[in-house]
């Protein structure tokens, strides 16, 4: 059986300098990884520890952090039934991180979605363009500074009951 502690110790052994933090918020071992070593770590998890299923990949935005944009990976090992979560943070100016599409074909659209929402460039991605929004959109809507509402509506402009 592959235990959570084994994963933590094995990763720490191999990538001592790349692992910035280890947490366990909800029973899933969570590693914060330096963004340049995300692919070697993922590859190690996939090839040495059997995490062959990319459950999820999504972005996150903390405007007040030094590295405001983040990418979060959830990996799953079916045989041992263990999950891990990896986080990598990138700067707000020219955010870029290596693509995981070579390891997991499933990452293709998830990375496109993250690019669409947060503007994180996945280097080496075969087809990095907007996926959900219209192509001519000129901002990244999921970043915290952009509003949710449709700007063309005027029926809600009310001093007391408006939005």
């Amino acid at each position, binding site marked *: 059986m592959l235990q959570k502690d084994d994963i933590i110790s094995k990763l720490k052994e191999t990538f001592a300098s790349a692992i910035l933090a280890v947490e366990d918020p909800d029973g899933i071992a969570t590693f914060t990884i330096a963004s340049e070593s995300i692919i070697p770590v993922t590859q190690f998890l996939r090839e040495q520890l059997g995490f062959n299923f990319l459950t999820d990949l999504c972005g996150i935005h903390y405007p007040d952090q030094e590295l405001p944009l983040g990418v979060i990976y959830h990996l799953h090992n079916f045989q041992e039934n263990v999950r891990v979560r990896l986080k990598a943070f990138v700067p707000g100016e020219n955010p870029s991180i290596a693509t995981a599409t070579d390891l997991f074909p499933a990452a293709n659209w998830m990375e496109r979605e993250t690019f669409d929402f947060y503007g994180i460039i996945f280097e080496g991605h075969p087809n990095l363009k907007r996926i959900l*929004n219209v192509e001519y959109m000129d901002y990244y809507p999921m970043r915290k500074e952009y509003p949710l509402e449709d700007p*063309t*509506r005027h029926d*809600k402009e009310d001093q007391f009951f408006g939005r």
Partner: protein
Amino acid sequence: MTTYTKVAPPEGFSAPGLFATSFEKVLGLARSYSIWPLPFATSCCGIEFMATVASHYDLGRFGAERLSYSPRQADLLMVMGTIAKKMAPVVQQVYEQMAEPRWVMAVGACASSGGIFDTYSVLQGIDRIVPVDVYVPGCPPRPEQILDGFMKVQELVKNESLRKRYSPEYREMLERFSITPITPAGQH
């Protein structure tokens, strides 16, 4: 034995062996019971539309048995579900491809007004791009509501003037939506 009600005849003058009424009314009656809807189903309301046409509710009872998936033959555009801004040009194109006379029914809150999705990516009601005849509220509307909306469309079809589609007001209205009218101007 099954009992059924015949469709009531339009107002007119009847005598033995003779029935006289205006052409408009006959045409309206015939049209209203042979509407070919184009189901433009995008999301949740589309699933309720499936229930509406299926065995339990059976839209076919209202003369709409034949769903026309091609806009060319369709009379009624039923827009069911959220229309995102990416989808908006497609809706307008489908409307432009339909032949006159054509009616539009916005089924559900999203198609009518954007519904709960007051967001950057959703069109806030299809009446911003095409003229709408009947709005059906609900998120999603129940099949009964869709049927009710359909009957409202039938009512409109029945009472429509033959000259309406050629009138300058109608042409002006279409031009407000940047849709080129297909009926020739100045006839009738």
